[in-house]
């Protein structure tokens, strides 16, 4: 357990490319090292945590994401915010998986100020 904090901004949706899975592996590895992880899902990335995804050919990204976020109940924690303008635009505001908070870009600004590192995976 460290007091390090990493904020990960995602902008891509799942499945079209491997970027989101890379982000998950990175977040998981960071948590294994005891780093607190903040997820800010922006633009198409707000679909990552959409409930009830059932891909036939790929690992279910929502379940993986939810597992990483729920593990945040213990330290090191993980928090997840989905951008409200983006979820509203895509009609997924009420469909976010458990543990995801609906928020805005100001929250990302605050996380950026608090975090040791902030990265964007696009």
């Amino acid at each position, binding site marked *: 357990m460290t007091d390090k904090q990493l904020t990960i*901004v995602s902008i891509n949706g799942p499945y079209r490319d491997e970027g989101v899975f890379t982000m998950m592996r990175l977040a998981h590895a960071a948590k294994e090292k005891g780093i607190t992880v903040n997820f800010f899902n922006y633009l198409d990335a707000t679909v990552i945590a959409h409930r009830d995804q059932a891909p036939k050919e790929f690992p279910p990204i929502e379940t993986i994401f939810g597992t990483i976020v729920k593990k945040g109940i213990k330290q090191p924690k993980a928090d997840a915010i989905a951008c409200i303008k983006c979820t509203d635009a895509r009609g997924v505001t009420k469909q976010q998986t458990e543990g995801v908070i609906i928020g805005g*870009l*100001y929250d990302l600004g605050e996380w*950026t100020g608090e975090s040791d590192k902030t990265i964007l995976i*696009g």
Partner: protein
Amino acid sequence: MSKKVNVIVTQPPYGKEDAFSAVPLAASQVAAGNEASLIFVSGGVHSIVKGQKTGYGDLAVWFKDVPSVESEITKNIELVSFFALDRDVTKRNISDSEIISGIKKITLPELTDMILEADVNLVF
């Protein structure tokens, strides 16, 4: 703690949502107490051209126009420092008179320094 944040936009406007969405992201960084610069590079420099017209056509069909990246830049020009990489601007034959007022051109060494001096670099 206040951070120095660079938002670097490589994507051209309108083909993707990235350029438009990078601007409010940078403005929100400032609102939260950080210092934000937005730098257009590669095809991203097309966003700096003034006089952008974004309508698809008849509003009875299309409901509303696509939001203008130019308007988003202009709205936040006092809040965020906007830059464009000079070599990419030249490559695309964008003249100084076509550039939205308040956007400064920078060289590659200057961009390198900005990246090294910043706490956070976010690339769209």
